[in-house]
């Protein structure tokens, strides 16, 4: 992650907006940690989106369902 002031400002604004939307208040130290986490995770989400593309991949809730058809089993 870079220390680009614009990126930090954008992340701070996004965190403030998310907290306001959810009706949450945070302490200053907590806010700093959330901004750092948000910046890291947004960059990783961008990487994830690039690997997922637009193919039909269902959202999986319980993993056993993904392995049941065609997946290997112990027996």
């Amino acid at each position: 992650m870079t220390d680009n002031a614009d990126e930090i400002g954008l992340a701070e604004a996004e965190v403030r907006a998310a907290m306001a939307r959810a009706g949450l208040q945070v302490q200053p130290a907590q806010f700093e940690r959330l901004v750092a986490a948000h910046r890291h995770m947004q960059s990783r989400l961008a990487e994830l989106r690039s690997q997922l593309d637009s193919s039909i991949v269902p959202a999986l809730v319980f993993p056993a369902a993904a392995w049941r058809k065609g997946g290997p089993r112990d027996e």
Partner: protein
Amino acid sequence: MSDAELCYLSIATLSGAYRARKLSPLEVTDAFLRRIEALDGQLRAYTTLLAEQAREAARQSEQRWANGAALGPLDGVPLALKDVFDTAGIRTTANSPLYADRVPETDAAVVARLRAGGAVILGKLAMYEFSLGVPELEGEFPASRNPWNLERIPGGSSSGSAAAVAAALCSGSFGSDTGGSVRGPASYCGIVGMKPTAGLVSRNGVVPLAWTLDQPGPLARTVEDTAMLLQAVAGYDADDPGSQQVAIPDYASELSGQIAGMRIAAPANFSPPHIALHPETQRVFGEALDVLRGLGAQVIDIELPKIVAMATEIVLIIGTCETFAMLEQDVRTRPHKLGRNFIGVPLAGALYTAADYIQALRGRTLICREMAKVMESFDLLALPTLSSPALAFADEPLRSSWRPTTLLRRLFSLTGQPAISVPAGMSDDGLPIGVQLAGRMFGERHLLAAAHAFEQATGWHRMRPPI
């Protein structure tokens, strides 16, 4: 036999001694209660001790053994539970001020099955708040300490579950594993800890952290004991929507010790430069692979698909979103009731959009598909459980929960595969280091057999902490 000698007997040995009428559940339970009184002031493994209930359960067990009516191999065996398992009439706190006075009306499914098997429940064990806080030495719920070195963390979140077993303050325990919370503490404390396949053990009555990732799992000092604990609780439960209907083999009777011919993958993704490992962890892991080769297994270096590296972040997105969904009202209206080092977890969940959560679930699907292909060619995966021996309390970097080394355990939380941590060596300063094996879905039988063979070949399970 001294209290320490009694309390360090394995579950299998205790059960055999009860059957042969050489030991009684009551004398064993009393030995544990004396040992807890002597040592737990330092260790702080127990949140709630159930001395009288345990003695009464032990008395009833003694009668059953005397009448030839024992309920199973765990009848009269003293166990303890992470304070995340609901216990009827006994407070279940998840180590959070929010639940400090919470008293469930019914037992969790795991607890009900243990009681039905005659187990003696000694008490409830310390943990990280809601299974993902940060250990704090002071306050209403002080953190448990590591019996190998009281200045080190026992790992989390099932910290008391591991510390109590390692110090012989119970014969075995149960924890819950959302991103490695059974396997990590087991590694730090020099014992065995297992995350079963998702859907094998009911989560009904377990205080959730993340509904689609949580799995209850056993901790014990030997693989055979781990198999016995798993046997007692495995099986379908209609009250858990993730529960799967599968045949349950006799795990303990199939610990053949033979792993010759097994194909074990050692993924490069879990080694430097991809993940920074402590030099002694790296040494112990290399030695563990040599042991597996010596037992006749084929150990093969592989590279897992690129998307596997996203598992840490995918677990974080899914986990924090689900935690926020669970605690949303409390975070909004009673934030002072959540620990200052825990509240950041649900707050982080509030940062994600619905699209982010769905993309994470899609990523989970892809990773499961990729791992299913990998497991067509291999019986097991081998990797370190943690990146280092136990850290000092001050060094616990949980606040940076996206650190890459968490991938070691989170991958299998995501895919649902079973994984077990087994003691594999010691650091130069006397701290245990574990190795992790992961298997195919519902492949606990092979996983336990391999872990047992490794354990018998190395003998690290015979280590005892200095406490």
